[in-house]
């Protein structure tokens, strides 16, 4: 029996038992997201395809799955979708600039031994891949916050139709700020968990602070965590503005 299949089965059972039909949809969307990622990797594997273009396509598909498939198409999900895509593009420009500047592309020292038998000259830009990795790591959190802002904003608008656009934006900011703490925490711990082996390795080698900060892997980890945090904060104004604009547009 394969561990992954067993765990997937357990997760599916738990989601259906607790969430019923919605739980089943959640599990299916998780699976669909996985397929989108594999498809993206398959497309990126052809050096003729631009990784940045494909990461944008992947993020659009993933947001469609997370927003439209789970919640249906309505003002809230359309606002959340537009906010997700806008945030992602702003963040992508920043990340591309940073990965190029800091040279965190490619593999770290801890991985190089394992790769000694492989050809590293595969014609795919690892600078762009590094940026793609950071964007994909935050896309789940970004869609989550956009929908969590736009959905209550619509409720606010429904109950107080007289609110002006700027008052709605203000409400959106307040909702977003309350989400900031828990959402950044969710991401930080997930990153801590997946970097645990590397952190232990650094401690084992008793690197000096200078060695650690300048090393490619640690810098890459830090930049990923910080860019994810920046992304989560950036969704708040973007989602508030877009939702407020869409809600007050018709009237």
């Amino acid at each position: 029996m394969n561990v992954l299949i067993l765990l997937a089965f357990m997760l599916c059972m738990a989601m259906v038992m607790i969430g019923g039909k919605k739980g089943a949809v959640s599990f299916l969307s998780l699976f669909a997201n996985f397929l989108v990622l594999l498809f993206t990797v398959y497309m990126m594997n052809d050096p003729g395809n631009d990784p940045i273009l494909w990461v944008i396509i992947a993020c659009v598909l993933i947001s469609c799955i997370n927003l439209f498939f789970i919640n249906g198409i309505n003002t809230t999900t359309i606002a959340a979708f537009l906010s997700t895509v806008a945030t992602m593009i702003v963040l992508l420009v920043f990340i591309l600039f940073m990965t190029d500047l800091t040279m965190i592309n490619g593999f770290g020292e801890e991985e190089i031994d394992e790769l000694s038998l492989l050809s590293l000259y595969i014609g795919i830009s690892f600078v762009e891949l590094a940026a793609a990795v950071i964007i994909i790591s935050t896309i789940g959190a970004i869609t989550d916050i956009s929908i969590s802002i736009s959905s209550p904003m619509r409720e606010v608008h429904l109950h107080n139709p007289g609110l002006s656009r700027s008052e709605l934006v203000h409400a959106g900011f307040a909702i977003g700020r309350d989400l900031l703490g828990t959402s950044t925490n969710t991401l930080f711990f997930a990153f801590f968990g997946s970097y645990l082996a590397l952190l232990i390795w650094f401690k084992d080698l008793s690197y000096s602070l200078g060695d650690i900060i300048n090393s490619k892997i640690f810098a890459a980890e830090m930049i990923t965590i910080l860019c994810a945090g920046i992304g989560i904060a950036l969704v708040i104004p973007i989602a508030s503005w877009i939702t407020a604009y869409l809600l007050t547009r018709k009237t």
Partner: protein
Amino acid sequence: MKQLFKNTSTIRFSMYAVLLISFIGSLFFVNHNHAFYSQPIATITEAVVEDTEELSDMYGNEDVLSSQQLLGVIQNGEYKGRAIELDNEYSLSGANDHEYRTGQDLFVFIDGAGENDAALSGTIDNVKRDHYVLAITWVFIFVLLVIGRKQGFYSIVSLALNAAILSFALDIYIRTENAGLLMIAGISVLLFTVTSLLLVNGFNEKTYAAILSTVAGVFAALLLASFAIWTSGGNGLNYEEMQFLSRPYEVVFMAGLFIGSLGAVMDVGITMSASIFTLYEKNPDISIEAMKTSGIEIGKDIMGTMANILFFVYISGSIPMLLLYLSNGAAWPFAFSITLSLEIARALAGGLGIVLTIPIGIYTSIFFIKIKRAAQ
């Protein structure tokens, strides 16, 4: 009242001042800290591409390899001010090499010192990245403070605090030979949960219920994951990517799983307890059944997105490695199992933690409400 207002604005003003001073001070320091490094650092003054050649390998991958002649000036140590010549080779893809540009600082080894005025010769060791890491840290701090204000400030403090706890816990693990990593991770999980939730929500029953359900939730996830690994004999998990560790991989993997799912489980725990307590506060006579039903409804809405967040964080990091294996002629199932098995297991186990925390959170909150009712 006026006095108080004046005081808070003074506090605010001094906080801005401290922030500004540390911003300017740290950026200045990190751009002029060459003397603190014992390894020589060279600033590149000239970079010339000497020749390029096209490459292709047996799998049909094509790349361009270029060699670069660099001229730099040593910034520290006994050769400070001397010129140095460096050679560099880089590929278009850049999986393990970089094209250097003028103005960059590089850590170098000095191989030979010639005559007094002749340029030194050396090899490149690493890029100096500390000033970039610091600059991004400041962008992060400012973006969070400007957008998130008070909540942004708490997020930064909580990140710093949790990173410190983790670093301290790992130090204990490294120093004490026999300390079990899982034990240490367990204690850290308690500390993380208590500090993060108290920081965000303060001392009240809502927070206590969230802490209890979070801890119960991650332990349940860990138990189920261990059960799954134990019944299947670890079949399907490939620890290849952790080979660089000289420590038992399985335990490190489990500890990572434990800590990694904590944030998401905490988020679910606080959402459940906050919403159930809100129901109770709005209508103190609400029946237990009604609270359960509403709790499940809220849980249904969040479990999918929360599981997705974990999934993307874990899987994304493996993409470059997966691509490398595929480009080297590896079959999908092999490349998949070698680069993704641990991440998928982590994501699935984290998802289990999230889903289980929903009923746990509901029952814990109801338990606290029952105590409250009995006390009245």
